[in-house]
């Protein structure tokens, strides 16, 4: 069979091509697999390529289409971040701890994408347990940025971002606890959406920080993200924090007029620490929006400086408890010949977890321990309310908020890996959004220092439709999102 070359198409285009019979799902799938195993392999974007599974699913999708049972997304290839449990397929979470973990069940997101008929190609690389901003914390080695393989792709959903940016897959899932969808999307020049906390079920998504984690789509356009979110989102009775609210048809409101829309520019997101060239790119995007009739006003999110400190108490605290189940007893890594129970725990966990995960477990354990709980954890939860209230107050005045996704473009591999605090600061604009549970998006807006820059859009709770609409209108008048890294064009 001739292989078709369709890697440059978006999800929406592929849906049309499949519907028109221009190519089959099997052809698409083979094309993607060939790129993943060929040109894409140097990026280290995948931990597991599920070739047989994918081809079986593709053929099934083609049969369904032949029977007239295909849905919009039927037969379109997709990669899952390796944090989502996939029945019968290794789910490593980027950790040695789960290197041998064949999940016995599917995550809700995996089920939903499967129900939509999408073809899962494999599992993408990530920072171990989603803890990291550069994808350098993976047991499977760092992912490389397709725009410049000496640069990091961002993290923790770095494998998904790199795979989409390099046109290995048309779309991927990610998760975002402090920026893990938006920051790598920005650094890899793709479109990524972190929905409102509770919009997408967390069932089967390996928990990092339960009150912050949220799954979302990563793709090449806002339109694709809208289609993917329609499939991903929805009520799941197995997640107590998942909301029971109808999922809007995001793809039907993409073209709405932006005239008269009021957008806030938080002055705290444009101050010290923001790379001047990144700022220039964001300013140019603001100009584009002005032309679309958007009104801008400066707002203040005055507790922004407390967001990263609060996050680095809350997230480690929750993670220290969430990761206690990895004890070498029922699944995952178990040390050789444990002397006694304590030895089983300490060695299994000591060997199974990498340095950053250990650091966060230790910080979180400390922050929750007797005598320190009030000073750290409780204080951070109070600051969390202040941060959320700042946003809610701002949404009394404006319809959405705009700013840079990250203060800098992708940094070089190894550049920040020795300094945890410096690494943490690369999430300074994204973290507050998780603390407040808001939806946030990163949209490609140009280049600085030759690397992609992301524009961040932040909406009120459950206002994903507006963000997608804003991003889509912007993508209709710009072509940043269509740019591909030369080596992978």
């Amino acid at each position: 069979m001739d292989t078709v070359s369709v890697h440059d198409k978006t999800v929406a285009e592929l849906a049309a091509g499949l519907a028109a019979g221009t190519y089959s799902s099997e052809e698409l799938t083979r094309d993607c697999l060939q790129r993943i195993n060929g040109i894409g392999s140097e990026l280290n974007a995948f931990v597991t390529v599920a070739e047989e599974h994918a081809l079986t699913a593709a053929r099934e999708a083609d049969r369904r289409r032949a029977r007239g049972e295909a849905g919009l997304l039927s037969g379109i290839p997709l990669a899952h971040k390796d944090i989502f449990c996939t029945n019968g397929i290794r789910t490593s979470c980027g950790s040695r701890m789960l290197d041998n973990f064949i999940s016995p069940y599917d995550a809700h997101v995996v089920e939903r994408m499967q129900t939509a008929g999408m073809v899962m190609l494999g599992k993408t690389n990530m920072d171990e347990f989603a803890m990291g901003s550069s994808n350098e914390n993976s047991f499977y080695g760092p992912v490389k940025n397709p725009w410049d393989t000496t640069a990091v792709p961002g993290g923790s959903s770095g494998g998904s971002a790199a795979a989409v940016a390099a046109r290995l897959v048309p779309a991927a899932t990610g998760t975002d606890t402090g920026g893990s969808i938006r920051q790598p999307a920005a650094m890899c020049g793709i479109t990524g959406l972190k929905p409102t906390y509770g919009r997408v079920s967390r069932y089967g998504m390996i928990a990092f920080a339960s009150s912050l984690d949220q799954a979302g789509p990563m793709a090449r356009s806002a339109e694709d993200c809208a289609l993917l979110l329609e499939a991903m989102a929805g009520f799941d009775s197995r997640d107590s924090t998942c909301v029971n609210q109808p999922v809007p048809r995001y793809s039907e409101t993409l073209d709405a007029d932006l005239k008269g829309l009021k957008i806030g520019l938080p002055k705290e997101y444009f101050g010290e620490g923001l790379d001047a060239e990144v700022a220039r790119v964001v300013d140019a995007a603001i100009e584009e929006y002005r032309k679309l009739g958007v009104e801008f006003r400066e707002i203040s999110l005055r507790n922004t400086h407390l967001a990263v400190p609060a996050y680095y108490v809350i997230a480690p605290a929750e993670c220290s408890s969430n990761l206690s189940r990895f004890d070498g007893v029922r699944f995952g890594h178990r040390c050789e010949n444990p002397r006694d129970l304590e030895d089983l725990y300490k060695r299994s966990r000591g060997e199974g977890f990498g340095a950053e995960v250990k650091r966060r477990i230790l910080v979180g354990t400390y922050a929750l321990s007797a005598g320190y709980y009030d000073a750290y954890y409780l204080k951070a939860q109070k600051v969390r309310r202040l941060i959320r209230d700042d946003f809610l107050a701002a949404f009394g005045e404006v319809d959405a908020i705009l700013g840079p996704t990250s203060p800098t473009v992708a940094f070089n591999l190894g550049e920040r890996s020795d300094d945890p605090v410096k690494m943490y600061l690369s999430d300074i604009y994204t973290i507050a959004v998780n603390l407040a549970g808001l939806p946030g998006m990163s949209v490609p807006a140009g280049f600085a220092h030759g690397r992609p820059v992301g524009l961040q859009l932040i909406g009120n709770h459950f206002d994903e439709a507006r963000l997608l609409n804003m991003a889509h209108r912007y993508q209709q008048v710009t072509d940043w999102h269509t740019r591909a890294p030369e080596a992978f064009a």
Partner: protein
Amino acid sequence: MQWEVVIGLEIHAQLATRSKIFSGASTAYGAEPNTQACAVDLGLPGVLPVLNAEAVNMAIKFGLATGCTVAPRSVFARKNYFYPDLPKGYQISQYELPVVHDGEVILELEDGGTKRVGLTRAHLEEDAGKSLHEGFEGVTGIDLNRAGTPLLEIVSEPDMRSAKEAVAYMRKVHSLVRYLGICDGNMQEGSFRCDANVSIRPKGSDKLGTRTELKNLNSFRFVERAINYEVERQIDVIESGGEVVQETRLYDSVKHETRSMRTKEEANDYRYFPDPDLLPVEITEADIERVRAELPELPDAKRLRFMEQYQLSAYDASLLTSAREVADYYESVVTASGGEGKLAANWVNGELTAALNRDGRDIGESPVTPESLGALVARIVDDTISGKIAKDVFEAMWNGEGEPDAVIEARGLKQVTDTGALEAMVDEVIAANPKQVEQYKAGKDKLLGFFVGQCMKASGGKANPAQLNELIRKKLAD
């Protein structure tokens, strides 16, 4: 020195829900290991808890029955520690905001007085699995079937002053949870477990002494024995110049002693924090009223009603209401007997209880149904048989010989009330005992009993005693 004993109890009652507190796995007892441990119970990566509505209802029931405040908002927290029977490395429990709090239990003491024991709180939490040490060399086997079974932890104030009071309190709570139908109370299977916090202080002091926590008290008898042992131990320690160490001690029912559980005592630091996978539980007034409407009659109210309605003594009423099954059995007997409350009480507390104890059966396993026992009582009342014969009939019923009327018929136990037949019998006895007749007529009235006895013997116990008395008196007066 005179010592005062101070005891508080923590009771863990497994709630009688069908499924677990946070998962849809069965809570049935006795299944093959790990066959009732689902993904959530195993703490697989990515799984999440969802709260069982019935567990909350049951907690509200308990709260209402003990005069607790039902919290309009309660919160689940994580209690973090590592143990192989705790799959997630934390137990989901309620910490700062329990579902119900500040109630009381009133104990009836043997001397007829009462005593109030305060309830600090009762909170919902998940049970752990079981560690099995038997049958393995150098390893322990973990069965997680029990993991996630809902527990209500009932915490009392340190209001009890003796092991006897502690047991009385425990029995009262045991009876209450069974009345409410929220716990089967089976102590062998671990459905109802108890830890005791015990300390001593000089009589008259209002300062609490250092307490020890006694674990593994899985019967009423062990609670009493363990506390008494521990009190003696603490007195010995202090009187020989030592200090009581705050620690957890395990009761060994074979050696009858308590011993320190962790020699290498490490400070427990459970790092409680609100479970981010669960949201605050809201209980509205309407929820509370709905549960209140479902509440059964509680033991105290039932006891008073029995005294009033059936003219029972406080003692009888208290025995009959000690367990809901007994009270229900009793009231069925009353109905079947045609309303003979007092006599029914005598039979339930007397013959029936004795027979149950003798065979080691629960009332639910009685071979004599309350309807049959009621029919038997009715036969006494309508003079078909005497109370004495009724005991034989009861024995026969217990041994499976059928309904009372059938037994009476088959064994020919029907009381003789035919005057002609009785007269003939009396004449015969008088004729056979001329000497006694002479003495009686000379004024030895006591001999009436002798004649009655002789006649009764001749009738095989079936003669109606009142009728017999009357007849003999009349004949001898002639």
